[in-house]
């Protein structure tokens, strides 16, 4: 009996690992952020954004609690429609290269592009398309002080080993724009990685973050909004 234990043990483990290896080759899980698809296609193919997802966590308000008077958007801050017109298509897997310059002449490096970073103008284009979901990855207090209008408040901690209920309500094909405080903050990148891991294909990171969005005069709101229940 004893002399068969070790060979049988090894065979069982080897069989399991072999099957796991084959399975991982057939349907691997994503571990890195893919360069997001063409923003134009993403907007075209995505369903219209619902203002309040059906499966909200307990305690989440049905409607965002808008405390500030809504649009603060001056007309001149709206990027030209060239950003989403078919005249600037891209099949390279990055957001439209012909997109209009961002508010404040924001430019992004190819490395940032490959990670899914987009400019403020592109983010606003997605916002206006009414198909994109914005995710504020900052902490609760920052979110409540002010966030992109209708953005979900889902901090990075909500992704640690679980899938946030608010994210579950988002269609896989919908464009998602994550943001934090802009510049070198990691939260939005990490949340984007997690979303990619969960199967979302059109995940973007608003490089300028909330400070840039606010400075450009784009729509914001304050208050509890729609946040992931803790």
């Amino acid at each position, binding site marked *: *009996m004893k002399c*068969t*234990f070790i060979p*049988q*043990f090894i*065979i*069982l*483990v080897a*069989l*399991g*690992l072999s*099957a*796991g*290896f084959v*399975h*991982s080759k057939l*349907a*691997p*899980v*994503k*571990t*890195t952020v893919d360069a997001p698809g063409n923003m134009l296609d993403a907007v075209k193919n995505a369903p219209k954004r619902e203002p309040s997802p059906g499966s909200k966590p307990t305690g989440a308000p049905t409607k965002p609690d808008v405390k500030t008077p809504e649009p603060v958007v001056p007309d001149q801050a709206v990027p030209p429609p060239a950003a989403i017109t078919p005249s600037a298509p891209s099949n390279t897997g990055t957001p439209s290269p012909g997109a209009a310059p961002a508010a404040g002449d924001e430019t992004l490096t190819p490395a940032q592009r490959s990670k899914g970073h987009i400019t403020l103008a592109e983010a606003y284009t997605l916002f206006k398309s009414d198909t994109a979901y914005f995710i504020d990855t900052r902490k609760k207090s920052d979110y409540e002080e002010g966030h992109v209008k209708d953005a979900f408040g889902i901090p990075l*901690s909500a*992704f*640690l*080993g*679980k*899938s946030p209920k608010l994210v579950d309500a988002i269609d896989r094909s919908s464009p998602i724009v994550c943001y934090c405080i802009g510049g070198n903050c990691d939260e939005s990148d990490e949340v984007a990685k*997690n979303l990619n*891991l*969960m*199967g979302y294909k059109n995940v973007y990171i608003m490089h300028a973050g909330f400070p840039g969005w606010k400075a450009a005069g784009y729509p914001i709101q304050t208050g509890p909004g729609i946040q992931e229940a803790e």
Partner: protein
Amino acid sequence: MDTPLKIACQSGTSCCGGSCASKTCVLSYLAVPFRFALGGLFLLAAFNKLFVERGPQHFAASVKAFKAIDPDQAPMLFQLAVFGTPWVEIFAGVALILGLWTRAAAGVIAGLLVVFIALIVSVILRDLNTECGCFGKLSPFCGDKVGVCNIVQNIVLLAMALAIANARTQFFALDSILAPIKNHRPAVRG
């Protein structure tokens, strides 16, 4: 009236070797429900990790959150952990239920449980706020967050696995059907 235990002890294939009240014989009987419970539980866990919608992604997020393997540094190892662990659970679980290679299967599950306990302890010590992912999206025994409850749960399961591995005779098992055949195979004479 002869009890099943006594009959088993008196039979030629019994493990009890004459001491019918011995602990090892009781263990052999206890091992039967333990085998089905543990095998079923590990099959359920593996099924939830691999075959429910977004199961692998959810388990991958748990593995990532444990911060034991960095998917950026060791992508192959990460994929193997995400897919290999549930498949090992499947093979060991099926073997336990069938009673085939029972001691080895119990040994594999005990090994997995020791690794799980070590990982959970490290998560608690590092104060990581994460879900277990032990049963995919389900948390049948403990809450969502990894905690002491998960350690207790795994220690109970480990005790069951060790009981199975230490049972000398496996009742209702393919091992006990195949063993006499092997033992009575006629010797090949040259």
